[in-house]
Every structure is written in structure tokens, then in C-alpha cells.
């Protein structure tokens, strides 16, 4: 397209528009690093907590603090990726908002769960004192379905909006696990949480990362 002011026929114009719109559509690539990281972190946290319950030991710290620590590399990844991008698509902007809203909801949910648990615990103790047996309803049993419900939301939206099936199915998998976890004991809930993290983020992240590497290779070949 080196010639200046080249006049086009109507058909050529329409072909050029189609070609450029397709080029712009294919210009956006995710690296998949964030999905891999969060999938691994959540799976590790859930499996470690499961091991604590299964083998009766306790780490000197709460393993879920790892999710707060993971925010640091996430910020670094986000800044690095946004610096490398030469184009910002509308999809990307909307998805950023969806995941930001998800992050806010997760932290609000942690806060709500803690406040509710602190209010519930003394009542449960009092009940046990009065009746001599623990209450049938255990608050902890219902925490994981709430989180699985949230995990499914941005994953499903991203999968549907970006026409990326691994994430679409990952989101659905989270919701199926959410329903199942309502009727299962905590140990199974933790297993379902780990499985959801792997299905919703880790596996799709690996697929995205593979595609990104392929794209980079192709770009390098073109630029030679």
C-alpha cells in the first residue's frame, strides 16, 4: 500500500474494508500467563487445604493468603502485557472490566463470608452447649459453592464473548461443581474447587499460551 491516493473501484473498496476488519480482529492475542497462574494458585490452595483436613496437620499460615500474594505478579503481568500491545480492542476493554469486577466480587465475598462466619460461630457454640450436639447446619459447607458460582461467571462470559470453547466449558463446569458442592462434604468441595480451577483457567491458559507461542513464531517468520 505504498502508492499515495490510489483510487479504488467500489468492489475493491469493499474487499479492502473486509480484509482490514479481519486483520484487526486477528490482531489481539492473549498470552495465557494470568490464566495459568490463577488456575495453579487456586488449585494448589484447595488441594493443600484438602491435605490439611485429610492428614490432620496445619501450615503455620493460611494457604489462601497465596491468592493475595499472587496479586503482585498479576499486576506485573498486566503492566507488561499492556506495554507490549499495539492495539486495544473493544473486547479486551470489556473483558478487563469483567475480570476487574470479578476480582472485586471475590474480595467482597471473602469479607462477607468472614463477617457471617464470625456472627455464626458463637451461635453454633451456644447451640452445642445447650443441646449437647453440634448443629446440623455447618456454615463452612456452603462457602465453596458461593465461590464456584463466582468463578463460573467471568469464565463463561470470556469464553462466550471470545468464542473460546475451553473457557466456555470451564465456566459451565464451575457451575456444575457449584451445585454438586452444595450436597457434598468439605473435602469433596475442595476437590471440586481444585478441579474447577484446572478446568476453567489452567487448561484454557495452557491452550492460549500454546496459540500465543505459535502466533509469535509466525510473526517472527513474517518479519525475517
Amino acid at each position, binding site marked *: 500500500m505504498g502508492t499515495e491516493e490510489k483510487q479504488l473501484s467500489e468492489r475493491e*473498496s469493499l474487499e479492502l474494508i473486509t480484509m482490514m476488519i479481519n486483520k484487526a480482529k486477528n490482531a489481539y492475542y492473549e498470552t495465557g500467563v494470568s490464566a495459568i497462574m490463577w488456575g495453579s494458585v487456586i488449585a494448589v490452595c484447595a488441594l493443600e487445604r484438602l491435605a490439611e483436613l485429610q492428614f490432620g496437620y496445619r501450615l503455620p499460615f493460611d494457604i489462601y493468603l497465596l491468592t493475595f500474594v499472587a496479586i503482585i505478579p498479576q499486576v506485573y503481568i498486566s503492566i507488561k502485557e499492556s506495554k507490549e500491545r499495539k492495539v486495544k480492542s473493544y473486547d479486551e476493554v470489556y473483558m478487563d472490566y469483567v475480570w476487574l469486577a470479578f476480582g472485586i466480587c471475590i474480595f467482597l465475598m471473602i469479607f462477607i463470608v468472614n463477617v457471617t462466619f464470625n456472627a455464626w460461630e458463637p451461635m453454633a457454640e451456644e447451640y452445642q452447649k445447650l443441646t449437647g450436639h453440634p448443629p446440623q447446619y455447618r456454615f463452612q459447607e456452603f462457602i465453596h459453592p458461593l465461590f464456584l458460582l463466582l468463578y463460573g461467571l467471568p469464565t463463561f462470559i470470556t469464553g462466550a464473548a471470545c468464542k473460546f470453547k475451553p473457557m466456555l466449558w470451564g465456566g459451565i463446569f464451575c457451575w456444575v461443581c457449584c451445585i454438586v458442592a452444595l450436597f457434598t462434604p468439605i473435602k469433596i468441595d475442595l476437590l471440586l474447587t481444585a478441579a474447577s480451577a484446572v478446568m476453567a483457567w489452567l487448561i484454557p491458559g495452557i491452550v492460549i499460551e500454546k496459540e500465543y507461542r505459535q502466533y509469535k513464531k509466525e510473526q517472527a517468520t513474517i518479519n525475517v
Partner: protein
Amino acid sequence: MFKDLDPILHSQLRLAVMSLLISVKEAEFTFLKEQTNATAGNLSVQIQKLKEAGYIDVIKQFKDNYPQTICKITASGITAFEVYVKNLQSYLSVNK
């Protein structure tokens, strides 16, 4: 009756730039250069013409101490593009 095609848009490079920008929120100059295979000089001239017509916004800033030019389509640019495509379609449907 046919309306004349917008002369600002009815040129290969300017139309290519507008078609790229209509699909994205914003794009760097280097991205437009890569996708259109145009020379930097020619692309600069055409971007300036689109800017003067009010079809795009051009933001010049620095990124890691290097100058960076970001282009984004304006509301009047979107309208002009839509009118252009509509006119194109009416020409093509008659010539069929």
C-alpha cells in the same frame, strides 16, 4: 439517486486505516503501518488528512522514553464510515 463517495475515505490507504480503526478502540501508529504495509511517511500524511477531516483523534505521547502515536476513530469518523459503506453497497447492488 447516487450520492458521491466521500473523497477522504475513497482512497486506498485512508480507507484501510479507517477500516482497522473502526474495529478497535485504539491502535498504535506502528500497528497501522504493519497491517497496511505502508511507508511511515505516506501513512503519516494520510493520518494527518483523516485527523484534519475530524475522522480520527491522534494522541502523541511517550512510552519508555520513545515517542508513541495512538490513533482512534471519532464519532464523526464512525458516521462517515457508515455512510461510505452504505453508499458503496447501493452502487454495488445497482451494478449487479
